[in-house]
């Protein structure tokens, strides 16, 4: 071992000076490998964090989540919970050592000058004993601040404390106004504490005792994904036993409630906390990994080609070494030394690129993928990088030393140089080219599908007017509830706000609606027919008579809602989207039909609105929606049409609102154009990154094909020199060699076509959504790949046939 290391040390110093003499080769290998390793390390880390790494909590593997599952009208679903059901478990469960409720909700930080929108976790005290965070300042929520104690205290996250409270070390004991309530700050979590991911995939800013959540804790029919739990099962209780006990408990109360009908049932499902957090993201991560492995294969093929050329260059040196008694394994070490130096440099640069990749992922995908904040250069990443670097160095050295014909090396020592100690067979060369082309074409075909899907979302017309329309969302004032009186009062307030907004000089028209026309996420509500039979659950909005006019969303049949001047609302009409009307009344007789959202509330269809497109919802269900007359059930929302080019700002509107009610606060003011831009941002990014990836694989493939053919032409240089010396015209030789060179290119393309079909069939079974394949788009890849391959083939041939034949014959 000692002698091996000493020999390796010697070879490393030899390799170092040799590589400095071939900067082009060294730079190409390092550039190719570093970019590829950067991407690989980044995606490996993502997969490691999502699929392997434990959550950063003590006893992380024992932490579970209990979800409610329901069967209503023959349909089963889970993931949304009712507050009464969760409270039932919290108070009565016997299966957990500790069990905590968690409710995610967003509120404004009212006493901050910018009134930022904060994510709050309303929790019971067990949350902290289960997750055991280290505290930077103060303490966590105590047992004495548990359920029904109404202690207005708050724990800040370290990042929130830094960002919004200027790292005030005297913060403990001070008060802060969140929403409409003033809370006493009792603690700041440690910097490293990462709360479990929530539906927003955002880190919570505050933890507040459960008592201050705004859920309806009495109605079994209101379900939300924002309500969750964390628990640790008692020793000896299996998840199956716990599910059975909790399910039975829930079912008993649920079927006795108003929300259930005959045949409806409820149950419980225990899922590990890690599985809940990771969810479907593991599939995305694995898809990304497969893409990066494809890229790696192309890069490895390329670099192998470059090393083969390098071995050809080195054959004289290797011949001398062999003549002096170097054994094949010692020649391998000689090749290994070079590949190791290059791989290590590429690995170091790859780590740097991966570091940027982590920042990029955090910026771009934190909303879509969980645990992104945990990505970083850690021991696992370093070990993986070390392993892959040594592995790749070994692969390159092995492949290039394998093609060295040890016995034929001696011919190199003859001064004529006619012999060659390096013999890569034609079959191997053709295989390398075909593999290169097959992988690159496959990646390009995949990229074309991704780009096309992204472009479809980016360029799809919305079907409504987004220009000069803003959406204003205002928090419901403190004390508003869902009683009849309160709703009438709130309706009156929205009418007043609307009327005040219309007085602004830049405002042309205002409509009330409970949510923006397009937004991230989904809100749907069940719809029954007149016989109270469920017809489905669809996206919905509550709007007033101006809504369709402002958005220039035409009604294809019927009419809009009447103008409500009386704040006493009445909901007895419904407008359907065109596609939903087609679904519910295929005969085209939807107008006049009656549907219900509650048994006592018949809704008569009075109009059919044209469909509009929601970016990202590319299936038919994206167009299914219905509209109800406006009522102030949720925060207040307004669609505001302004004069051309005018802007609406928080500063402009807030004084106007405060004049009406000092408790009013603005949550959002955003133009529909901006909202649209935000929604398609991810798709633009996907298209951009995919184009870069596609170009990269195209360039890599071109470099690889060039590498093999350049080597191949070098091998035939003597022969080509003879052809030229005998009077062959250059175009004749070019055609002869090009024909041979393009043959493996065509084979590669054929292989990629077969592989594409196989992968498509596999992926189609794995994915829950439909992939639309545009054959024309995919076929576009063929001429691009052919053009690139043609150029890569032509360059080395041109160099060989335009030189003086004597040079080839003399091996100069």
């Amino acid at each position, binding site marked *: 071992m*000692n*002698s091996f290391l*000493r*020999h390796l040390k*010697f070879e490393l110093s*030899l390799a170092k*000076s*040799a590589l400095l*003499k071939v900067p082009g080769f060294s730079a190409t290998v390092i550039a190719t490998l570093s970019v590829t390793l950067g991407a690989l390390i980044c995606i490996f880390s993502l997969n490691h964090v999502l699929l392997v790494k434990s959550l950063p909590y003590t006893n992380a593997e024992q932490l579970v989540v209990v979800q409610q599952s329901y069967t209503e009208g023959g349909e089963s679903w889970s993931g949304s919970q009712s507050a009464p059901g969760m409270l039932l478990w919290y108070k009565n469960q016997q299966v957990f050592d500790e069990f905590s409720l968690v409710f995610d909700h967003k509120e404004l930080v009212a006493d901050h000058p910018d009134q930022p929108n904060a994510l709050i976790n309303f929790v019971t005290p067990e949350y902290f004993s289960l997750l055991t965070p280290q505290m930077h300042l103060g303490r966590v929520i105590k047992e004495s601040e548990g359920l029904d104690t109404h202690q207005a205290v708050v724990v800040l996250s370290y990042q929130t404390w830094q960002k919004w409270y200027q790292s005030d070390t005297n913060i403990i004991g001070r008060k802060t106004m969140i929403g409409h309530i003033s809370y006493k700050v009792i603690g700041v979590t440690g910097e490293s504490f990462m709360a479990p991911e929530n539906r927003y995939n955002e880190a919570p800013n505050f933890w507040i005792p459960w008592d201050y959540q705004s859920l309806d804790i009495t109605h079994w029919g209101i379900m939300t994904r924002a309500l969750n739990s964390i628990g640790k099962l008692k020793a000896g209780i299996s998840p199956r036993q716990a599910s059975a006990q909790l399910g039975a408990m829930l079912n008993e109360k649920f079927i006795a409630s108003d929300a259930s009908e005959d045949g409806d049932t409820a149950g419980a499902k225990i899922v590990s906390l890690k599985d809940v957090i990771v969810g479907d993201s593991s599939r995305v991560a694995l898809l990304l990994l497969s893409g990066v492995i494809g890229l790696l294969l192309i890069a490895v093929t390329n670099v192998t080609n470059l090393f083969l050329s390098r071995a050809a260059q080195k054959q*004289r*040196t290797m*011949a*001398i*070494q*062999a*003549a*002096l*008694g*170097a*054994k*094949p*394994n*010692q020649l391998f070490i000689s090749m290994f030394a070079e590949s190791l130096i290059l791989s290590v440099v590429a690995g170091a640069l790859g780590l740097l690129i991966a570091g940027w990749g982590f920042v990029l992922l955090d910026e771009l995908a934190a909303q879509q993928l969980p645990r992104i904040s945990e990505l970083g250069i850690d021991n696992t990443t370093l070990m993986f990088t070390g392993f892959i670097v040594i592995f790749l160095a070994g692969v390159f050295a092995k492949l290039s030393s394998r093609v060295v014909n*040890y*016995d034929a*090396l*001696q011919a190199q*020592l*003859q*001064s004529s140089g006619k012999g060659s100690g390096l013999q890569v067979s034609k079959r191997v060369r053709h295989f390398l080219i075909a593999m290169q082309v097959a992988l690159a074409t496959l990646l390009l075909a995949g990229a074309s599908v991704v780009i096309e899907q992204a472009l479809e979302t980016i360029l799809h017309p919305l079907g409504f007017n987004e220009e000069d329309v803003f959406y204003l969302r205002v928090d419901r004032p403190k004390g508003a509830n869902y009683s009849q009186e309160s709703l009438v009062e709130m309706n009156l307030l929205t009418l007043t706000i609307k009327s005040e907004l219309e007085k602004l000089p830049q405002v042309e028209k205002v409509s009330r609606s409970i949510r923006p026309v397009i937004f991230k996420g989904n809100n749907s509500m069940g719809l029954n027919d007149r016989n109270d039979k469920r017809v489905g659950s669809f996206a919905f909005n509550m709007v007033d008579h101006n809504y369709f006019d402002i958005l220039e969303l035409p009604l294809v049949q019927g009419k809009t809602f009447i103008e409500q001047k009386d704040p006493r609302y009445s909901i007895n009409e419904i407008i359907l989207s065109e596609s939903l009307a087609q679904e519910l009344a295929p005969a085209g007789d939807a107008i006049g039909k009656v549907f219900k959202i509650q048994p006592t509330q018949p809704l008569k269809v009075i109009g059919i609105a044209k469909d509009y497109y929601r970016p990202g919802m590319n299936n038919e269900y994206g167009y299914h929606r219905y509209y109800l007359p406006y009522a102030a059930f949720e925060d207040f929302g307004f669609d505001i049409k302004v004069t051309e080019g005018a802007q609406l700002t928080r500063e402009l509107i807030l004084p106007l609102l405060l004049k009406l009610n000092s408790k009013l606060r603005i949550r959002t003011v955003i133009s529909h154009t901006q909202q649209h831009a935000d929604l398609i941002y991810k798709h633009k990014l996907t298209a951009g990154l995919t184009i870069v990836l596609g170009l990269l694989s195209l360039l890599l493939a071109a470099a690889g094909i060039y590498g093999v053919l350049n080597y191949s032409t070098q091998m035939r240089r003597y022969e080509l020199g003879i052809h030229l010396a005998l009077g062959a015209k250059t175009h004749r030789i070019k055609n002869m060699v090009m024909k041979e060179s393009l043959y493996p290119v065509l084979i590669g393309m054929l292989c990629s076509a077969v592989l594409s079909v196989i992968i498509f069939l596999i992926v189609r079974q794995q994915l829950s959504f439909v992939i639309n394949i545009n054959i024309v788009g995919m076929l576009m890849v063929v001429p691009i790949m052919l053009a690139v391959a043609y150029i890569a083939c032509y360059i080395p041939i041109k160099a060989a046939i335009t030189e003086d034949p004597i040079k080839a014959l003399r091996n100069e």
Partner: protein
Amino acid sequence: MTHENVTPMTSIKAEAPQKVIIEMKSLTKVFSTESIETHALRGVNLAIYNQDYISISGPSGCGKSTLLSLLGLLDTPTSGQYFIDGQDVSNLSINDRAEIRNQHIGFVFQAFNLIDELSVFDNVALPLRYREPAMLEKDIKKEVLTSLEKVAMSHRCDHKPNQLSGGQQQRIAIARGLVGKPTILLVDEPTGNLDSKNGDAVMAMLAKLNSEGMTICMVTHDPRYADMAKRKLHLLDGLIADEYGTGEYSVDALALEKLSAQEAK
């Protein structure tokens, strides 16, 4: 200085070589392609004695280089037997042949075949670095310096080959051939890439080495240099057509001395 001007300054009476260190029996080598078989060697019988100095000459294509390649275990014979120090090395594995080359054979090539990336010291040290078990660095250093001193090049240790003249490079190549204390030094057209002055000096050096006990086998086209060997083999169509020896040889001590003095400057 031309060939004609070489003047023997010292004559040394060689002792009669006794011990056979290399023996070839009916050695043949056939190069085959799909349609043609070329018989490069047709049954060579050769014995090389300790402290021999053999020159091999003959017209192009007579098999000189093939014979040297077989002698150096750079190639395998088609048939026949080959012994080094009594050990049959005709059909050894690649690794075993490499080891024999490393332990028993020193090479000097027409084109020097030094590695440009390595210093003079490292070029000379190369055969020792392939020794198994590995030699200690201090031992390698000692051997390399001794070997370089023999060719009067120890002052050029840190230079790279491309900083040296052709004659100097060939002397470095000789030092490399000697460093492993081989049984035999195989020399392939050692003056082919040199002018006559450097050629003479290299030949003088080889003669001196032989006089000090090194066994040498040299391929050369030059009849005057061939004449400097103790035994002269003439190859024709793959066979040893003629063998004759003088029993005496000359060392151009003056040429060697002059060249060493120039290099020292």
